[in-house]
């Protein structure tokens, strides 16, 4: 298992060295690519809590990604147009302050996670996949018809939101924010996996009925995991919207849900750095292969096929071998 520890250190090193190199060489586009990878990684780390730890195959995590995105978009839109978000019963105005936007994105995603989780966790297996997908599509079509916030065209934010002490328009500054959040969430995730909650959740994933006989409620455990998972993905959505200064219904689409799941599968389900590797590989392929062919998804599909058929532990599993979740 030490091997995985070293591999994780190397991956983290890549996320530190490449942006520093790009900053020195004055390559802002590379920094933006790494920012994109870090945000995708954050979204996938969120999904990995539900999928890897709780065994919940959610095909609706774009719901949280979109909620995070629109949390940012709506607050920033009202701030830039100097219109109140609501006037009754209290006056609430928009905001361009990132910490406030993140808190809002996390709370909104948590509430959505609670409501979706309560309903979805009444089912399991393929029905759980379908119900989470249905929720995603529901939000997708709602956002298309929500003309107040751009409807199908989405919502543009003219200037990136601000963070005290940083100039977020400078790519390396914004990257620093994103990578710090990613590292913080990875650290929390590593503590979570080893905590009594994480151990109980893993047991609930293995044998739900048996967990009940030791006094644990598997549905409640999975619901807590689903909410945590949603909040992390929601936070990633807010960062992604800020990166592009644009939100659109695409963030809610089932393709987005699929992509987040692909990141986790490519890197390794249940591996701490699996989603990070998956996101990095995806962004690299998107950049390099996208320049060679419009049909670069074919190569991604082949990679996914190879991993699913020959390396169930994802890329990390192929390099480090099988591992236990709590090591």
């Amino acid at each position, binding site marked *: 298992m030490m091997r995985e520890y070293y591999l994780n250190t190397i991956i983290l090193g890549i996320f530190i060295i490449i942006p520093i190199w790009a900053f020195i060489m004055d390559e802002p586009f590379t920094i933006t690519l790494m920012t994109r990878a870090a945000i995708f990684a954050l979204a996938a780390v969120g999904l990995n809590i539900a999928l890897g730890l709780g065994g919940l195959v959610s095909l609706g995590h774009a719901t949280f990604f979109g909620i995070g995105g629109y949390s940012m978009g709506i607050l920033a839109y009202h701030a830039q147009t100097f219109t109140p978000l609501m006037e009754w019963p209290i006056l609430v105005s928009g905001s361009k302050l990132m910490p406030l936007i993140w808190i809002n994105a996390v709370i909104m995603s948590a509430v959505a996670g609670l409501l979706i989780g309560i309903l979805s966790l009444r089912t399991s297996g393929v029905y759980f996949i379908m119900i989470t997908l249905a929720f995603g599509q529901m939000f997708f079509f709602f956002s298309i018809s929500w003309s107040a916030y751009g409807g199908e065209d989405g919502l543009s934010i003219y200037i990136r939101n601000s963070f005290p002490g940083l100039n977020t328009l400078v790519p390396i500054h914004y990257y620093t924010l994103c990578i710090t959040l990613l590292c913080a969430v990875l650290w929390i995730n590593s503590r979570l996996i080893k905590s009594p909650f994480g151990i109980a959740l893993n*047991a609930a994933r*293995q044998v739900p009925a048996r967990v009940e006989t030791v*006094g*644990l409620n598997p549905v409640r455990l999975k619901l807590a995991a689903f909410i945590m998972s949603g909040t992390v993905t929601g936070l990633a959505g807010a960062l992604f919207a800020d990166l592009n200064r644009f939100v659109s219904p695409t963030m809610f689409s089932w393709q987005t849900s699929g992509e987040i799941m692909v990141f986790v599968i490519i890197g390794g389900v249940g591996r701490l750095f699996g989603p990070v590797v998956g996101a990095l590989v995806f962004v690299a392929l998107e950049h390099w292969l996208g320049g060679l062919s419009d049909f670069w998804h074919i190569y991604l599909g082949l990679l996914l096929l190879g991993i699913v058929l020959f390396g169930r532990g994802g890329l990390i599993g192929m390099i480090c071998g099988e591992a236990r979740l709590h090591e």
Partner: protein
Amino acid sequence: MSLLQLSDVSASYGASQALFGVDLDIAEGQVAALMGRNGMGKSSTVKCICRMLPSSGHIFFAGQDITNMPSHRAARLGIGLVPEGRRCFKDLSVYENLVAAQQAGLWNFAKIVDLFPRLGERESQLAASLSGGEQQMLAIGRALMTNPRLLILDEATEGLAPLIRQEIWSVISKLKYDIGLSILVIDKSLKELRSVCDKAVVIERGLTVWSGQMKDLNQDVAEKYLGV
């Protein structure tokens, strides 16, 4: 006062009825044996007590009606189960198996290791890699970690080597005499049951047919209902 009381409990698996009226009474600090031949409804009775099988009739535990209670809430009230076939969490280590079940109270990881030193030696080993006897110790330890008021042992010594069986029985005696724990034991070995149990309940075709002090369980009853 009764800690566990079952009156006229019936249960079915779909269209197939398994229990037709089980009566059972265990007092605080008492060790009772639930006996009967294979397929007579012993494990189904245990499933009803632990709320893993819906039932009719009445089940009271510590003065509360638990007949319609979900399994996890019954366990929280203090019903600890050592299931038939051990059924540890195979992908978790010994330590994690125990910690996953931990509730506040007398038992903690150190106390379990005192009771079963072997588990301490294999703390970080996966449950799946343990021997049958060690898995059984782990299953007992896991049930104790819930700090139960009643421990239910369903065929806890089945398929184990004689030395391990002896160790398990000595632990059951220790739990009875040192801790004063109430225990419901299902086992086929009459000799050991006689040495540790205060009372016995015999089930035949899903119905309680004999109940009384263990010392009153005579050869006639044993021959008629247990085939011994």
